[in-house]
């Protein structure tokens, strides 16, 4: 199974537009934390991460970026909401 585990990263609206994609598959590394995922992506897509305000893991809002990131997690990095 090693090397098969991935994190599914979702982008929507203005962030997706700046990434140029709505979903990325990122390889999961043991001991990985949410902050590690964010740091890697923010380095690669700085313009998109400029407007990221909220993070969700498996559909739940997350504020503590130091939490461990299990494999097969679904993570979303989101801009300020503008619905309603």
């Amino acid at each position: 199974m090693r090397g098969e585990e991935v994190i599914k990263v979702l982008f929507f609206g203005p962030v997706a537009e700046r990434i140029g994609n709505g979903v990325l598959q990122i390889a999961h590394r043991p001991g990985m934390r949410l902050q590690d995922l964010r740091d890697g992506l923010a380095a690669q897509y700085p313009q998109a991460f400029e407007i990221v305000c909220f993070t969700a893991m498996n559909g739940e809002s997350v504020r503590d970026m130091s939490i461990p990131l299990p494999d097969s997690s679904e993570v979303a990095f989101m801009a300020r909401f503008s619905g309603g």
Partner: protein
Amino acid sequence: MQQAVRIQREDFSQDDEIKALKAGSKRMGGIGTFLGCARDFSEGREVSEISFDAYGSMALSEMKQLRSDAIEKFGLLDARIVHRIGTVRGGDNIVFIAAGAEHRVAALEACRWMIDELKQRVPIWKKEITPQGDTWVMPHP
């Protein structure tokens, strides 16, 4: 009868929503609603269409939680929330919120609270399509 909380492309009927809201109780003395519509003009620019993107599963679960929170916080008899996605034109409906209570104050305050909270909590984004190009709406903090 349709679900009390929905995200959908198609338009909705206020009459149907109010009928569904009332169905549960004849003790409902006051119903407050908020209907958000697409304006054809925003920040000095003409807007021809508005399109929406949403984190659908999370948006729906946040909206369901928001409904439960409002029912508990304001002692409502029932509440409904419908948000459209896809593309809408000037004047079209976007979001509908209804709060039913025994008395008017709770219904109206809950309605106000729900639309304010929805804008904070629910992962939906709108893009204004104008003759000068498209712009994702970036609300100020």
